[in-house]
């Protein structure tokens, strides 16, 4: 647990958490993806363009060259941990919300479909932690973890109903983690034709 847990729904806190990923991999610098994009807070990036669908606190900067392999690997691991934190935040918020919402004399958390979705999300979170704990991480493994977390995130978002689609809410938080994974973790070389996944 970090001090940011529970506050990632705040765009400034999310941008700070992303900056911390850069700091772990490249102290004082920015990690550019294989496609030469770096996403960070406007303060850290200094310049850049708005992230489509993102908050003003985040920018995307086109860099001269991708980061080195080691830096990218460290950053990717940190990014996946941030994705896990974000998903945990979204799940916890859903549980708290549904425990307060009453329907037909009981809380929505008592519905079997709801409990199943909570459990499925938790199972994916637990498995992703186990996968991240394996030695010798590879780009393909990290990509699979990202995809698993994305799928689990979609499950968790459904627990929020329409609130999960509000910009100031869990929907945008998980959208940003998906966009970051697409930018940094996609294992295919940038600009090449996809053949296998």
């Amino acid at each position, binding site marked *: 647990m970090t001090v940011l847990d529970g506050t990632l729904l705040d765009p400034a806190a999310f941008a700070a958490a992303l900056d911390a990923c850069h700091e772990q991999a490249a102290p004082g610098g920015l990690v550019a*993806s*294989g*496609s030469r*994009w770096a996403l960070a807070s406007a303060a850290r990036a200094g310049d850049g363009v708005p*992230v*489509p*669908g993102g908050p003003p606190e985040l920018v*995307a900067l086109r860099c001269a060259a991708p980061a080195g392999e080691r830096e990218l690997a460290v950053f990717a691991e940190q990014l996946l941990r941030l994705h896990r934190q974000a998903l945990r935040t979204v799940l916890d918020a859903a549980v708290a919300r549904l425990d307060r*919402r009453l*329907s*037909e004399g009981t809380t929505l958390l008592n*519905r079997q*479909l*709801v409990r199943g*979705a909570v459990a499925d999300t938790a199972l994916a979170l637990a498995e992703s932690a186990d996968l991240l704990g394996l030695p010798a991480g590879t780009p393909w493994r990290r990509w699979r973890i990202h995809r698993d977390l*994305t799928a689990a995130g*979609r499950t968790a*978002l*459904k627990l929020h*109903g*329409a609130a*999960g*689609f*509000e*910009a*100031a809410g869990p*929907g*945008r938080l998980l*959208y940003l983690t*998906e*966009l970051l994974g*697409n*930018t940094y973790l*996609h294992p*295919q*070389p*940038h*600009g*090449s*034709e*996809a*053949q*296998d*996944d």
Partner: protein
Amino acid sequence: MTEGLSPRIEALRAHVREAAVELRTIGPEIDRDPTAIDRWLHLPAVDIMRGCTVPTEYLDRPLRIGGDTYDIRSCLEHVVTIEELSYGDAGFMLACPGPLMSGATIDALADDKQRHAYYQRMAGPEPTWTFFGLTEPAKGSAATELETALVPDGDGFRLTGGKRYVGNAAFAQLGVVFCRRAPGPLGIEAVLLDTDTPGFHAELVETVGLRGARISAIRFEDVRVERTQILGYQTLKPSRRGLVGAIRTLQRFRPVLAGTALGLSRAVLDHVHRQRPGLAGTARLRLAEAQDRLAAARARNYRVAQAIDAGQVRLDHVAGVKTRAAELAEYCTLVAADLLGPAALLEDPLLNRLYRDARAFEFMEGTGHIQRLAVFQGVLKGTFLD
């Protein structure tokens, strides 16, 4: 041509498809600024949406294609129309003036005088935006539990409470509000409300995508409601008013929403095909799989719409197509983001917009959890898998 659809429907599809072509370039503008629709009200696509489901006797220039006239009140015609416009841009389509869901409630509940006044207004020279106010902040779209209160006040009523996630409400001139006059399901009423009535407040809710839907929050502060504004108050028993209108509207519109999701799905898969014509191996198979699922979902949606036109409204089938289409839109956009490669969500504006838009369909007109309960009932009754 889609197998099994009549030449009349295919002519409508071709006409709408042509009108939808230019929406693709306007979509980004609507995404940035949903009020930008005001600059595009002269487009044929807007004319289609304004006249969609308005009876032809109210229109000076009803839609004519070849020798046929269309009011698009058939569910199948409506589905095909919305699917094609959504292929162009779903956000643009939803930002358009016109009856949309409120018209279905009018058809279900209004007396002749109410219906006439409503459609005269919809057919008038000025564009009129409408809303369908059912969902509440604390209760979602559980119609039987809604809390917005209609309290007697002299010879009329006062409306108090709030709605959330209501398309176009912050920009509409009128809309339908579901509210509670008395406890229990028979105490629900549907009120046709002008948004310039004192005490009506609506504001835009910022969303992840589909910003053209202009999803809004409404607050009612002692809004005066006359008896004549309660739909069917003079002609229908309480058991045939209010809740019945909400249910019929949702039943009628779920295949239409499925058409929106399927139009978007087709748009994103076609985009992948154009951008990556040389896909090979597993990637090519993934695209083919998504295209197969889309073709199957479209065919099923047409069958459900045709059944509705024939008077056979099957709740489980309607719920099934809505939830599968919503899931398919998410699935297709996720597949597209994978196949278009690293940073595609940053670099490809169309993909990015469709990717964000696709997430709206899950909660619109009832969540997947609610639809699954209807499918489950259909399995128990032996109607879903027949």
